[in-house]
Structures are given as structure tokens and as C-alpha cells.
């Protein structure tokens, strides 16, 4: 599933990244790589998705979320 489809307070693991060189560069340099654990803190309409990963709170714009594939992990 896509990152933006995750509900608030859910946990997931990134399973894949799709996009151009620039997108991949930006997303990996902030620490979001395949296999990386994330928890979704906020997911409101018309706002970037707020997530927590590698000890960092990260905001990801909804359109960039389209390029991030995740697998939900049940707590």
C-alpha cells in the first residue's frame, strides 16, 4: 500500500521507493529507505503526512507519499 493510505497511529515498514533520481535522493537522504520502520503520527487531508522514523519526526507531502510503498505492521 501507499504511505498516505496508512491510518494515524499505525506502524509500517517501507517496502519500496519509486520515482526519479531527485526524489530518491531526497527521500533516502532524510532517512527513509526500504526496510525502515515508521509510525504515522498524523494523516490529515490536505496536509503532509507526519511520521516518525529513525528518531525523527518527518513531514512528507501527500504527492511524494505516492512514491513510497509500505507494508503495515500490526503492533
Amino acid at each position, binding site marked *: 500500500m501507499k504511505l498516505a493510505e496508512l491510518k494515524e497511529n499505525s506502524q509500517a515498514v517501507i517496502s519500496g521507493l519509486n520515482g526519479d533520481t531527485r526524489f530518491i535522493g531526497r527521500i*533516502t537522504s532524510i532517512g527513509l529507505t526500504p526496510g525502515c520502520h515508521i509510525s504515522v503520527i*498524523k494523516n490529515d487531508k490536505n496536509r503532509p503526512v507526519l511520521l516518525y522514523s529513525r528518531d525523527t519526526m518527518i513531514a512528507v507531502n501527500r504527492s511524494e507519499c505516492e512514491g513510497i510503498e509500505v507494508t503495515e505492521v500490526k503492533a
Partner: protein
Amino acid sequence: MSTATIALLGQPNSGKSTLFNALTGLRQHVGNWPGKTVEKKEGSFTHAGKTYSVADLPGSYSMSANSDEEVITRDFIASGKADVVCILADSSQLERSLFMLADYAGLEAPCFLVLNMEDVAKEQGKTIDAAAIEKKLGIPVMLFSATDIKAYDKFYQTLERALKTKTHINVSALEEEYIKLDNYSDIKAQLSDDTISGYTPMWLTVKVLENDKVVSAKLKDTLSDDKVKKIENLAKSGSDAVATGECKFAWIDEILQGAVSGRKTITKLGRLDRIYTHRFWGKPAVVMTVVLGLLASFIPALPIMALASVVTVLQNAVGSGLSSAGCPAVIISLICDVVLQSMGYVIKMLGFVFGVTLVFGLLEEVGVMARISYVFDNTMGKLGLQGKSVMPFLVSFGCTIGGASGARVIDNWGQKVLTIALAWAVPCGAAWAIIPMLSTVFFGAAAPLVIVALLLTMILHMWITAKIFGRGLVKTEDRCGMIMELPPYHKPKWGALFRYVLGRTKDTFFRVVKVVLLVCGIFWVLSYGGSNESSILYKIGTAIEPVTKFFGMPWQLFIAFVASSVGKEGAVGVISALYSGGSYSQGFMEAMSGAARSENLNELLLANVTRPEALAFIFALTFNLPCVVALAATYQEIHSVKWTAKIALYYTATALALSCIVYHIGLLIW
């Protein structure tokens, strides 16, 4: 005296600016990188009899070629201009923030690592073993807190150690990860140590796999065609940037293994963040924060602005002193109306610049700015801007000068120029002082409608301006949504912040004075004249009246419109002087330096100006260029004469176009 050059490298929120400001204080210089639109920050300091120059390297989260900033940073490091590179990481988020170090590994410039924000990590219950990390990396590593004054001795010691040892990162463990990648070894075999100076074959190979266009172009210049072909083919079938990213993080994990312990941080939002990120209350909370911050900024700004009124007193005193000494009127006018007047403007402006720089700097340092970006990302994204751009817009309701100075927080040049260009459309405090007065005189109870129409026009204006300028300023590939860290809140370092603000204010003063003097001088030449008929402005104004009439402005209003480009405060005074029939040029000068309007202004206006003309004038004044000081402040921020002139001409033209449209609509109504 011996000297050394150090370069600061770090991701956003790694405390790089705090360190830079604390080290260099007032001894900084902001310019542009040669031929680029990227801001270049340099400074210097002395310690123990040695002079150090410091370069604050621009850039974002990595050493890729995603932006001009990153390419400049890479080239600077590879050029060997820095004796040592100081890499900063955030101790509270080591795993993620060491990515810059991992991406740096393989560059030939010596470096050392500063694990900043030790205090935040400690608060989170983390303990970090810097010695263990140093042993694995092979470069000096220190724990640090840029906000702690006492920590700087340790910093200087580590810096000295790094300069003496000139060590490089031990990359063997990292390369072990890279070797597992498809085609890594085959590509590397095509390269040698001196293929491109400053970069190791390992680093170049990884960038080739990451599809780095700048590196590919460089290789094309140095290698034979068949080698380039070979590399290209290998890169196509090899691993990609996702895989190299995984390698870097695997290496970081290994480095941190056993060196970091402590509890994991809680993944809940703090109370303040629950408000800022709230679906409904987020935006009002952000706007309130900015407004309160601005009000607070008036406290330090007011004493400076009070100085400006001293200049006004001085103007009168100098004027009468010189005239009793028998000085020619031209000289007196030149001194009082140009030199002192300009100084008065500039000092008043410095109050704003000081206040806004302080408040914005504080919001940035504390971490609130990132929340503002988050909340307004979507709205501002529609204009091609970052969420932060909302701040200059809000400030511009008070003063466009503040808005232009506040645009400094926007780290992309094109977006900064576009933000300022749009902020000009926001009616400033001086306009708000005139609009309700004129509207009430001419339209009575319908005055609020005029204000609503102005606000709607403002939104439309900003939208159209964004379309017109946006394409040239913000490239489509730069129009990407945010991928940004929301840092934990930090305590500000007041000393460094104040020194930074003072430095910026001083810098602004010298640059702006020149522009303001020039523009005020031109206006003076145009409007100076013994009697009404001899000034150039009068002659032009009356000569082109048939044209300006079409825009809805008789010559008196047109000259007031021209005067409003210098300062909107003076515009009404100019009208009053022109219609009351006194000496026009004297009235003009006096009005611009803040003389009182004539008491029967309302009757004068109603007797001489029709309603459509009044409406046309209100629109022309509101959307004209804000004032000469805002023009200078814009130039100071964007460092481009071409773009400053472009924006100024655009505003003059659109203001006239708007007044024309409004006038003809008005003619249909009345």
C-alpha cells in the same frame, strides 16, 4: 599570524548556523557564489593568535546533485580550499543525521565530526560514546552543544587536532557494503585515483550508480569515449540510489553499534505540536504566533525608530541653521531633503529589519519555523512556494520592508524572489492608513466594500504574479512538495542570535543607504524647482495628463502616485499640497518628509476629484511599489539588480493597469 580555512557542513537543523554565528559573530559577509544565485556566507574569527576563515556551506540533506546548493558545496570541498571540513550531526537523531557524513565519505578533504545538540540527546536519555565512534571513523569526533558557551574551548581543541592530523574517514567498512552492489566493482575498475581531483573512485562510483548527472558530465570530460560508454551501460544495469542509500545506513548502523545507548524516544506529539499540527487550529495558531512575534519585535525596534524622529528634528534644525548662515537654497534642500531624508527612511527601516530578523531568527532556531512550513505547505505549494513563505506575507500587512527581510528564511533563491515579488502585493501599514480615510471621504458607508475589493484584488494579483514570474523563478523540478524534518524544540542561543541580527542589520544599512540615496536623489532632481512650472516632474505630469487621465488620474493625482513609490505615507500630503495651490515643489518635499496635511483636505478632495478618479487612485496607490526602502530591502535580499528592477517596473505597470480598469468600471457606475 597563521591562518586556516574551515568549512561547515551539515543538514538543516544540525545547528550549523548557530555554530557559524557563534564563531564569527559580527565578522561575517553574505554575498553570492560567483555566477550563481546561491547565498554565500563567510566569516572569520581569531583564537589563540590564529585567524580562521569560515565558510558556511549551503545545501540540504546530502551531497547529491539535486540543487545548485549541493553542487556548489561539493565543488568547494573538492577544490581543497578548506583545510578541514567540520561535519555536523544532530546527537538526538544520530542515525538519520549521520547520512551527510556517509555521503561525504570518499571525498578527499580532511574532516572532523561534531555531534551537536548533546543537551537534547541527554534530555532524551541517550548516552553517546564519542570515543568509540572516533575509533571506528578514524577522524576526530566530539560531543558538542552549540548553545553552551563553555563548550567552545573543546571545539577549538578538536579543530586544532583536526588541522594537525588532517585525517580522512576510514571507509573500508563502507566500501564492504558498496562492493555487494551490482556492477560497483566493474565501474570502479574504470576509474583511477586521479580521474577527478578531490574525489575518490569509490565516491564517484557510488554517484554514477545514483545517476548523478553532474558527475557523469565530469567523467565524460576526462575519460575516453569507450570508457564512458562502458560506465554508462554498467550504471544502467547496476544497483540504484535506493540500494546505495541502504548501504550508507547499514554502515551508519554499524558505526553506532554499541556507541549509542538509551531509551527510544516517545513517538507522541508534544502539547505545542498538537496545537500547531491541528487540522483546524493549526493555521490560526501559526498566524497568531507570527503576529505576536511581530508585536514583540517592536520592543527592540522602537528605540531604533525613535532615532528616525531625531533625524526629522535634525532636518529642521540643519535647514534653518544653514539658511541663516547664508547657504544657497539648493544646497540646503539637497542636504535636508535628500541626505537627511534618506537617513530618516533608512533608520526607520532598520528598526523593522532588526525586529523581523530577530523574531524570524528566533522562530527558526527554536524550531517553530518547521511547523509553519508544515501547516502552510499545501496552500503555498499552489503558488510554487514553500510553507514558510506565509511569514513574509503576514509581515507585509505591517511593512513590506519587514516582509522582504523576512524572506531570508527561504533557502531557495527563486522561491525567495517570488515570495518577495508576491509580498509587494500585500497592502502595507502605510497604505492601510490612507485607504480607509480616502474611501470614507468619497464612498461613505460603502468604504468597507472598497476594502473588500482591494483584498480580493490582492489575492488575484498574487495569483497572477505567481503565474507570470513563477515559471522563470521556480523551475518545475524544484516545485516538489516538502520532505522535511520537524526538529525537536531547542533553546535559543541568545548571544549568537543577537550578534547575527546585529550583523545582518549593519550589512543591510550599508547596502540600503546607497539605493535609497540614489532614488531619493533622482526624485529630488525631478521635483526640485523654484516655482511650480520649473520642475521636471510638473512639466512631465501636465504634458502627459491626457494619457494619465485615461488611467483615471489628473496630473495632481498622478504625481501623488509617483510620490507614493517613494513612500506611501507622503502621498496624501502631496495631494493636499498640489490642490491647495501652494508652491508645488516645496509642498512635495514637505509632504514627503511627513508635514501635516491641510486641514480642509476633505473639502479639497471632494471639490477636485471625482469618485471614479478617487477609486482609481486608491487602487493605483495600494498596488504601486511599496516604497523606496522596500525596493532597497528587496535588492539587499535577492542580490539581483535585474530582478529588483523587473519587479519594480512590473508593479508600476500593474498599478496603472488596475487603476485604468477600476476607473472605467467607476465611470460606468457613477
